[in-house]
Every structure is written in structure tokens, then in C-alpha cells.
């Protein structure tokens, strides 16, 4: 029951790929800051998210997708959350692992 957060663009950093190696069926992933670029549809990174087990929840911070103009171009798998929902996600998971 780990919430993994990724804050780097997958195009310039390995943290997203590294994070995926440690994701199990109980885990969730939350993309924040430049990490939200991984959720942009029709990219090799969003394909990796789509191929994750169906039990794994994928989230992105709405303020960050909005700031980058990505809101109309995200894979369906992604659930957008606001800051309060980020806090609730952290509370609902046993621990939070930050990838940066």
C-alpha cells in the first residue's frame, strides 16, 4: 500500500521508469510537477502506464496538468486530484515514496 510520487519529466530523468520497477498490485502512482508529462496520451510513457495491472491506480495533480496544458490530452487511466485529494491519498496509503 505505497503511494509513489514522481515529479520529473520522463523525457529528462529516469525516476518514472525506476518507479515503475517497484510498483506492485497494491501500489498507486501520483504524477506531480513535470512528472505529469508521463500521462500525455500516445507516448511511450503513457503506454507503460496503460500496461500496468488494472488494480494499480494512476493519479496526476490537476494543478500541474492544467499549468502544462495537458488536460485534454491525458490517458483515460489517469484520475486528476486536487491538493486536498493528494493529502487524502497520502493518508489512505501506508507510506509515500517520492521519486525525484
Amino acid at each position: 500500500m505505497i503511494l509513489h510520487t514522481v515529479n520529473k519529466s520522463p523525457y529528462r530523468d529516469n525516476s518514472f521508469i525506476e518507479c515503475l520497477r517497484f510498483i506492485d498490485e497494491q501500489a498507486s502512482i501520483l504524477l506531480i510537477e513535470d512528472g505529469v508529462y508521463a500521462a500525455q496520451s500516445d507516448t511511450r510513457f503513457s503506454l507503460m502506464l496503460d500496461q500496468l495491472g488494472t488494480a494499480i491506480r494512476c493519479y496526476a495533480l490537476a494543478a500541474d496538468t492544467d499549468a502544462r496544458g495537458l488536460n485534454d490530452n491525458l490517458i483515460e487511466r489517469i484520475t486528476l486530484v486536487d491538493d486536498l485529494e493528494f493529502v487524502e491519498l497520502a493518508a489512505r496509503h501506508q507510506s509515500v515514496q517520492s521519486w525525484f
Partner: protein
Amino acid sequence: MKFSILVLGSPYSNQSVNTALRFAKAVVASEHSLYRVFFYHDAVQCGNALVTPPQDDVDIPAEWQQISETDTAELIVCIASALKRGVLDTTEAERYEKDSSNLADEFIISGLGQMVDATIHSDRVITFGP
């Protein structure tokens, strides 16, 4: 549920401090509480009272002070990180015979033990990396 936050990034250099601030505000606004914020590495500049942003920019030290005032959250600045970056309270300024000190109100200079304590006494610790 008690939250603590570890901040590592430099204010005004990348987004991480702003994300940490938004998260801290959300914790304070929620049913949960904020136990401690630990500023480590370049993040110690959040506690620099001489930070003077332009009027249309976020006053990051002031935003943290406001969180500490509205909640009981402690703002701890790592002593080793702070001293070498020129962030000193009056005690440290006297100890090292400096002309002045610049630690902002509400911030406390202390050691890594406070981070260990935060992991023990909080239900969740969230790291905001640079």
C-alpha cells in the same frame, strides 16, 4: 492523522517548494494536522528573512510563516545545511562572531534528530525532492 514534510529543493529555483507549500496548506485545511516541516539542503533558504521577492511573486518564507501561525506546525531548518548557506539565528551568529543573523520568525534551527523524531511521531512523512 499527523503529517510531517521534508523539503529539499531551493525556493525560486524549482517547483518542489511550491508543491510542498500547497500540500502543507491542504493538510492544515483538512481534518489532519501538520506536525513538522523539516527544511534540508537548499530548502533552508525558505527560512532566510532577507528573501525579498518582487511584489507579483510568492513570498515563500512568509507563506511558511503563515502556515506555522495558523497551525501548530514547527518549521525546522537543518543546522548543518543552514550555516554553510548563510542562514543563521542570533545564537549561531554570536557563536561564529558574525555581524548579523537572518533566520526568519517562526523558523527554528535544529539538527537531523528533529527529522528522526518527525518520522517517529507522525503517521505520514512526505518528501518533496528538488
